[in-house]
């Protein structure tokens, strides 16, 4: 803070030059005995209040401070008096603690405002402002000193020193970035597989179980058209990372409703399984409208047609929800016959048009 003005108050130096701790010369300008002229500035720009008003304000402020005093005590008392550990008790404790705290803060705040407005003078002081820039002389002094210092240090004359210094800094600067590499494994092809893949489970075809209850689903029991289930892979019910890709919605469709987008070979008895993970940015597409067979993602309202391979009919999602090939095991329970043919969930750079690849493979094989 170089170019600061000493607390100038115009007109003419109201802040007298004195050392802290010595008596103030301001004592000469006593305001005593001038009460009847209250409101008039004894010092230019400082208008003390009317003493009667000031006394009233003092009393109000004192009352406010007293309220704060009592509320503070109330707060401490509430802490001791009201225990928590049940929902109802917590509600009471919260009300008591919060209520007293609010009152205490409010009392203090109002009290101080009344104090400032009622007891302190009204101010209309003027302080000078100066341009931010330092004067030309200072600037050139700094400039010269800077150059002189640079010369003294030798950095300007000795290129070897300069270049090796720069070279030395570069790898050291990179080191922290390198250190961050172990924050995570590389993506590789992890996003292309889910735990449904039988290879992932030593060739075993995973059962579909109901999310929450963990019940396996007998195809014969899930036979009312229009029904919907949220489904997870057996054995991974609590593996959130697996669920973030493997969760399904299971829908029962009437045969006549099924359109060409749906792969019928991957269905079982009118039951179709789609990834529940929205292809937009990954929310669970959890809403289902039975009459229209629309699957709706609550996050940004992408809407998918369950009868037509879950193709997008509205919203920002660009791709259908991938379909999972399902069948039944020897006991009649629904199982996954394979993994999704395309990566599930949000799009990513390396994904490519996986759907087109699958279509092309289908044509060539």
């Amino acid at each position, binding site marked *: 803070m170089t170019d600061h003005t000493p607390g100038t108050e115009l007109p003419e130096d109201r802040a007298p030059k004195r050392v*802290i*701790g010595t008596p103030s010369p301001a004592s000469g300008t006593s305001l005593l005995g001038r009460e009847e002229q209250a409101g008039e500035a004894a010092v230019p720009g400082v208008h003390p209040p009317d003493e009667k008003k000031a006394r009233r304000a003092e009393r109000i402020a004192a009352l406010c401070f007293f309220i704060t005093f009592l509320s503070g005590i109330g707060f401490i008392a509430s802490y001791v008096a009201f225990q928590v550990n049940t929902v109802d008790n917590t509600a009471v404790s919260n009300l008591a603690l919060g209520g007293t705290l609010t009152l205490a803060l409010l009392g203090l705040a109002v009290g101080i405002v009344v104090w400032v407005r009622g007891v302190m003078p009204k101010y209309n002081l003027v302080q000078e*402002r100066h341009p931010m820039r330092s004067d030309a002389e200072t600037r050139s002094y700094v400039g010269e000193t800077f150059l002189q210092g640079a010369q003294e240090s030798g950095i300007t004359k000795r290129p070897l020193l300069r270049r090796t210094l720069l070279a030395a800094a570069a790898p050291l600067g990179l080191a922290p970035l390198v250190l961050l590499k172990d924050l995570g494994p590389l993506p590789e092809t992890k996003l292309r597989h889910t735990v449904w893949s039988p290879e992932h489970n030593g060739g075993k075809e995973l059962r579909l179980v109901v999310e929450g209850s963990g019940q396996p689903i007998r195809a014969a029991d899930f036979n009312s058209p229009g029904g919907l289930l949220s489904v997870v892979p057996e054995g991974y019910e609590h593996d959130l990372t697996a669920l973030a890709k493997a969760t399904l919605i299971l829908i029962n469709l009437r045969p006549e409703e099924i359109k060409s987008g749906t792969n019928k070979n991957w269905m079982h008895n009118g039951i179709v399984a789609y990834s529940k993970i929205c292809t937009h940015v990954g929310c669970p597409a959890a809403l289902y409208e039975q009459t229209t067979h629309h699957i709706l993602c609550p996050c940004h309202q992408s809407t998918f047609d369950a009868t037509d391979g879950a193709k997008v009919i509205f919203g*920002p999602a660009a791709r259908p929800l991938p379909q999972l090939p399902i069948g039944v095991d020897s006991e009649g329970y629904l199982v996954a016959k394979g993994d999704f043919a395309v990566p599930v969930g949000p799009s990513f750079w390396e994904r490519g048009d996986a759907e087109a690849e699958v279509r092309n493979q289908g044509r060539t094989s």
Partner: protein
Amino acid sequence: MSTPTAVPKPIAGTSGWLDDRLGAGNFLKRNMRKIFPDHWSFLLGEIALYSFIILLLTGTFLTFWFKPSMGHVIYDGPYEPLKGVMVSEAYASSLHISFEVRGGLLMRQIHHWAALLFIAGMMVHMLRVFFTGAYRKPRELNWIIGVLLLSLALFEGLTGYSLPDDLLSGAGLRITQGVAISLPLVGTYISFFLFGGEYPGEDVISRFYTLHILLIPGILVALVTAHMILMWVQKHTQMPGKGRTEQNVVGAPFYPAFMAKAGAYFLFTFAVLAGLGTFAQINPIWLFGPYTPADISAGSQPDFYMGFLEGSLRIMPAWEINVLGYTIPLSVIIPALVPLGIVMTGLALYPFLERWITGDNREHHIADRPRNNPVRTSIGMAGITFYGVLWLLGANDEISANFQISLYATTWFGRIAIFVLPAIAYVVTYRMCLGLQRKDADIIGHGVESGVIQRLPHGEFIEVHVPPAEDIEAHMRGKEAIPMIDGAEASETDGVPPRGLRGPVGRLRARMSQAYGGEKIPLDAGHGNGHGDGHGEHHAAIGSGTGDDKSLTH
């Protein structure tokens, strides 16, 4: 009021001791009576500052019990409906704070409300600075610091919101990850490095915790401090008014008046937040349940400051392109980056663009009244409208449900409104600014209605107009023509433009300078004798307004 006598011994002794060692007397001499101007809008920044302090206090309290871990535990606390459910330690400890720590729920709720007020306060404060032109020289650096603070605060809020690991915050985290992974080239790496592998993994809460309680608050504290120091050194701007010039500050001294007022204001902010924390439930995570990527509650809404991103994701059509085996998910990248980019970059660059257009290199300490810089004010209102449309669309499902409008209709409304409404806002604001300027000129020229009816000798009744009160007139007269770059007019007329204004960019600059600058409605218009102080030059700008503004400047 009693006479100041000697400073009491204990204070004199202590301060003497300190001054012997620090020489602080000099600093205090200069600063104790520093003058602070007064205007209600100057308090907005203080709201943000005090909310931040309250965030630090309540947040520190929360850290004493919060466990930033995604390890699974079986919930065994007092909240019956979740007993026996498998939850993360982070979620369990948030419930512990809520139900088993006295004052814990209060602190959690105050913390959350303070986060909202912090960001809201910053936004409104920033609008005040924008509309009054308080970002102009020499305050550009503080403006940039402000933009950084706002951006960081959004991140801070995002990381904090995710910590309790409940179903609602998980939805936000999922969207964040979906956006991160969609970035071209680096998306999957960013996502894998952030989450320590595939989403959600087991690391993100503890990493967010470090960001939320150490890294970002540390930077915020540093930036807030720098912000305050710069404000102190450069002194506050003041509204135009009696006795106020570019070379002075008029107001109350820091000690004792401003200090006490600031203290009271902090306590008010705290009281309001404590009241909200007591009476207005916020983020009842026990109702949402623990996070699972398999579930979501319908009608999930993020905190208000994330709403505009939500809205922009919602109105985006499903564009995605595949080139050479790589995917560019435009339907995610555009809405996630473009509005935020426009708003933040636009804000950061505005002082420099304005200076480039007006060529104004002077220091400014008198705040503009928004009407007196119509183009700036209109741009600001267009920006607010742009933001507002996105924000509103972030809740289009609620709007659709509450007002029985088709969901898709609201989306389509948003897709159109995002382009149309800001333009309308611009035009309407521009006209309003000129209208208000005209009103000012009228008051200066004809005075205000006094309410006194006078009968003239020939029988006519008139209402007596009296000159406006001195301070009001001073307030209005604190207006000056907006500068234009030298020679901007030459490019319009047949004069030869100066060298810098010849190329296409130069010509654009000259045209923008003309539209932006000048005096649209001179205060003393129509009073021939007026203050012939160079207004003539600016009159030339009227009528030669360029581009869109042509019809408006008349």
